[in-house]
């Protein structure tokens, strides 16, 4: 029942990096979270404000990084923090992506790219081919492009923007369809807006391809007790956040459609 991971401890922010007009990456020391695997998340306490679930973007050598998009009160407070500020941590929690060999494709949307960057770093030396499709609303919001350039060979990166300010002007699903039809992949990983994940799931199902998707839900306890993050019969915090094809099929009715709100009622995604 009691795990060291779930003990709240405090640490200080040692580096804050601006990634885009709305996204900052925060780095701090934490022994437990620095041993996290790609796909896992942590609960970050902004003292006196809130505690929020965040995907781990990088971990190792006692250091941990998370990328935070400013979307509400808690994240606005987070963005206002400076190096040296004290934060609280629980985690790492949840499962992680399997680490596939062979020909691997990663598809990220928005800050969903963060855990995939972690995964790409981990897979870089092990895979035969690593391809990445990243989508964002606009050029300024395309995250980690130069980091990904370093990991994948440049020709294996496709970027899309909704306004056409960088890369292709379309959603990630457009170049994805072409890739899936023209090339062979042993595993596809995705993380991003759920509507995008749903679409990608439909595309891989049509072509009978393996997929692992990291999902997001409102979270409170982070340890599988409170039920706030249920999708179908699964707890995103404990059974996920990474789900495979068989599990995604079981949650089809809710994926990209509905989730539980703060009051536990089902609301549109």
């Amino acid at each position, binding site marked *: 029942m009691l795990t060291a991971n779930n003990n709240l401890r405090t640490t200080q922010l040692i580096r804050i990096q601006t990634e885009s007009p709305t996204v900052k990456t925060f780095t701090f020391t934490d022994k437990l979270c620095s041993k996290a695997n790609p796909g896992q998340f942590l609960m970050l306490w902004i*003292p006196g404000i809130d505690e929020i679930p965040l995907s781990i973007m990088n971990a190792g050598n006692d250091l941990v990084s998370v990328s935070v998009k400013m979307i509400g009160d808690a994240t606005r407070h987070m963005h206002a923090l400076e190096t040296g500020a004290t934060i609280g941590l629980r985690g790492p929690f949840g499962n992680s992506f399997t680490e596939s060999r062979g020909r691997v494709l990663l598809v990220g949307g928005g800050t969903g790219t963060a855990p995939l960057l972690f995964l790409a770093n981990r897979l870089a030396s092990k895979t035969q081919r690593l391809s990445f499709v990243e989508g964002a609303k606009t050029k300024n919001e395309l995250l980690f492009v130069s980091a990904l350039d370093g990991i994948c060979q440049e020709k294996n990166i496709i970027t899309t923007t909704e306004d056409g300010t960088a890369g292709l002007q379309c959603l990630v699903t457009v170049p994805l369809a072409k890739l899936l039809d023209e090339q062979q992949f042993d595993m596809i990983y995705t993380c991003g807006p759920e509507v995008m994940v749903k679409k990608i799931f439909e595309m891989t199902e049509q072509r009978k391809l393996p997929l692992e998707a990291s999902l997001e839900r409102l979270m409170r306890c982070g340890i*599988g007790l409170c039920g706030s993050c249920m999708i179908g019969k699964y707890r995103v915090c404990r059974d996920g956040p990474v789900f495979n094809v068989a599990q995604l099929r079981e949650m089809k009715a809710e994926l990209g459609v509905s989730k539980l709100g*703060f009051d536990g009622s089902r609301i549109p995604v």
Partner: protein
Amino acid sequence: MGTNLLSTSFAGLELPNPTILASGILGYSSESFSRVVKAGAGAVVTKSVGIAPRVGYPNPTIVQSRSGLINAMGLPNPGIETYVEEINFSKTILTVPLIVSVFGYTSEEYAAVSKRAVDAGADAVELNVSCPHVKQTGAEIGQNPKLLSEIVENVKAKINKPVIVKLSPNVTDITILAKAAMEAGADALTVINTLKAIAIDIETLQPILSNVKGGLSGEAIKPVALRCVYDIAEQYKVPIIGCGGVSNWHDAVEFFLAGASAVQIGTALADDVEVFGAVTKGVESYLRRKHYANVKEIVGLAHRK
């Protein structure tokens, strides 16, 4: 599979085994209920539902202490009007009793929500008169025998299904509240809710939970819960559901011996949802080893002189 050893009944409820999902744990959706039933639960209790939706408190809503968890969720719930659909649907797929946990701010609210829940198919209601962290409901009622009686009487008058009262341990003498609930017509008592608690972060010099105080659950409270069950069973003949820190079959057997007809399991699900199966299997082999024909035979045996 030896269900006759484990099957039990009390307060008009028939359970395939004496383990019940405690309120507040995975308790919103029919899918969660069927998952814990598949894992082996003999009945399920929903999250507490009130007359109107509540979003609950901001995080942190949970903090771990050395041997338990302190939580202050703040009774998040969609309100009974929305929740009746979930009750309705759950009833179509569940093979075990569905107990709806009810909270309110007045006895009329308790009665109205209970009525709606039962009309939607609830097999029983469990009155949450002991939530330690929401003002003007829960514990404030559960600490006041007069208020408690009034609520139980009101609910009893409105519904014809079993009324279970979940008692607060945050009182001087829990048997006084047990007596008040019984005399007002309670069909069974759930003993106990969480113990009022707090955790403070020494680096930022502040309480960790957004609500400052919360309720302690888990292994830390098991001896206290067991003592409360024992105290009530010693004085009164009322079906008791033991609740507090049950993590394995050994804990469950202790509760039966103290006088509980069944146990609720909550915090231990943090280890594994399959805890229900492990507990029932362990209880079953205990009963076999001790040559009892049914779990009912051991209820209250620790009181034998």
